[in-house]
């Protein structure tokens, strides 16, 4: 592709960066905690899947992306949307299925998107976002944009043939796409160890795709690794895999009784909280300040969402096709 020198989106001092990363993670955390309450209030339709404990991946990867870069997400996509820059008020309004939502209340939790920010949608279908990211990368490549596409997927999605088709195609066409596996050890109610026999590193090796394993709960490491890999992809290096080891703190969906789950496993997850890990390298004052600011932002966004109006029926009916189409 003959690109110019790799650009990292927001290169600044480590401390500034860590604070930014922490803020993003905390925003995701507090947002999802607030969603639990809103769900209990009966304000959120359907199921929601929380990424509590996994925020470092979204925060770290998105930190090295530009607005021109695109991502596709999963059913567990709140963090991706927030880290990619969706406005919080529109996010909450969307989760509450309000007309002022990012998707005018027609997507909800599993389909949050912010196309202008390059967030091409959470996705209710396991693995379905992966080829969409490939297609977006194909557009970047064909139109010679200095942009990459990122496909987020869970470890359970590795059993879908679609991922395998996409690995092959991405390499074959040298697409500027980053595969990010959020390996939380679970696919719904069953440990992925009981679902998947291969490991992603060996699969990647079979395809000749670089594979970088990383502690997905250490946001600084994620950002560092993502930065290097994305720079390489930007400069025409072709697809790569970032394999993030993390833990699902909550259930598969909010309210999941987590029957089969070992309590020790839950304790382990709590001990590896990405917020705690990041906070170690920040001053207490910085942490407190971020907490205050984030809390205020979220409160404002929720207030907005609560007051926002319901989506209109006629608007929805008219939304299926472009108005100006033949």
């Amino acid at each position, binding site marked *: 592709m003959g690109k110019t020198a790799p650009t990292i989106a927001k290169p600044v001092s480590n401390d500034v960066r860590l604070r930014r990363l922490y803020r993003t993670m905390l925003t995701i955390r507090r947002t999802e905690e607030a969603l639990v309450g809103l769900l209990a209030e009966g304000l959120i*339709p359907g199921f929601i899947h929380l990424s509590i404990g996994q925020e470092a991946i979204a925060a770290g990867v998105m930190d090295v992306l530009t607005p021109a870069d695109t991502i596709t997400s999963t059913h567990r996509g709140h963090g991706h949307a927030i880290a990619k820059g969706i406005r919080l008020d529109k996010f909450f309004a969307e989760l509450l299925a309000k007309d002022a939502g990012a998707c005018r209340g027609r997507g909800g939790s599993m389909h949050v998107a912010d196309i202008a920010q390059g967030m091409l949608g959470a996705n209710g279908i396991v693995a379905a976002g992966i080829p969409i990211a490939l297609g977006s990368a194909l557009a970047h490549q064909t139109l010679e944009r200095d942009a990459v596409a990122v496909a987020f997927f869970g470890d359970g999605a590795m059993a879908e043939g679609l991922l395998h088709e996409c690995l092959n195609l991405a390499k074959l066409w040298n697409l500027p796409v980053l595969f990010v596996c959020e390996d939380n050890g679970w696919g719904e109610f069953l440990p992925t160890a009981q679902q998947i026999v291969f490991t992603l590193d060996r699969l990647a090796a079979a395809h000749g795709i670089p594979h970088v394993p990383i502690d997905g709960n250490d946001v600084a490491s994620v950002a560092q690794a993502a930065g290097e890999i994305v720079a390489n992809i930007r400069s025409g290096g072709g697809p790569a895999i970032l394999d993030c080891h993390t833990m699902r703190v909550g259930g598969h969906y909010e309210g999941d009784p987590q029957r089969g789950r070992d309590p020790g496993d839950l304790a382990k997850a709590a001990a590896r909280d990405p917020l705690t890990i990041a906070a170690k390298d920040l001053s207490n004052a910085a942490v407190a300040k971020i907490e205050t600011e984030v809390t205020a932002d979220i409160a404002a966004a929720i207030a907005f969402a609560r007051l926002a109006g319901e989506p209109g029926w006629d608007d929805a009916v008219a939304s299926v096709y472009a108005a100006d189409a033949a």
Partner: protein
Amino acid sequence: MGELRYNHAVNRAMADAMAADPTVVLFGEDVAGAGGVYGATRGLRDRYGGKRVRDTPISEAAIVGMAVGAALSGLKPIVEISFIDFMTFAMDAVVNQAAKMRTMFGGQCSVPMVLRTQHGGGAGSGPQHSQCLEAWFAHVPGLKVVCPGDPASAYGLLRAAIDDPDPVIVVEHKALYATRVPEPNSLPILSIGKAAILRPGRDLTIVSYGAALRAAAEAAGRLAAEGIETEILDLRSLQPWDEGAVLASLARTHRLLIVHEAVEAFGIGAEIAARMADVGFDELDAPILRVGAPFMPSPVAKALERRYLPNPESVIAAVRRLLA
């Protein structure tokens, strides 16, 4: 007196079939350990063992394809695809393989597999988890499609599906799993292809199936207060469907309304209307009407979803048009 819940009826059908026939096996995502997203398979692994009740990886195409091969080689597999929306990954195995094999192989084999899945709205699950895609399967020669609207049919149709030598798609409804009826005295295996008259009436016929029956029943109740007597037919089986029963009812009432939750355009109701506009033409005293979802994806917002789904008001409005 106990009660029978829809998801327990589904469970009992599988349990009874597995007890009766050691070749019946069950697999799907989270059916074994977790007992299914809607609890319909709970306890089956404990009772019948991990060899016969298995959790699978998230590989819809492969697991439905495996069911075909297992059915060809002596098992009677029940495979669960937890949302009909995910069938989009597994259409080849059902449509190009299972459905065609009896004919295509010249009668050398049966493909006695059951694909249990679940459709419909009411849970705010949004556009990718609420579709009603049963018309796709009804259009494919070689498949049978049933859609139980109450606990007793859930039992009776699933047992029939498991016994059937041909591939049967059993479409349950997420909003029905928790519904219950008083424990019936007997729980017969039903015949695929037979409709049931849920309510007799002389003024018009409503043909419906699945969860939409509830809207039809509620509407019929309210209309009865005005002296309008609605006959309600529960199709139960969509492929084959009971053309004779629909025609017989039409011959009594001369007015037909079809109600379903699927998108109206090109839905199940289209075929029923089309057949009645042919073989039932002389019986018709009024246009054939349909109530189905408008041509749009399922809304997420509760108020919109309520309006999107068939409801007593939309049924009553159609009945008034029909009787006008």
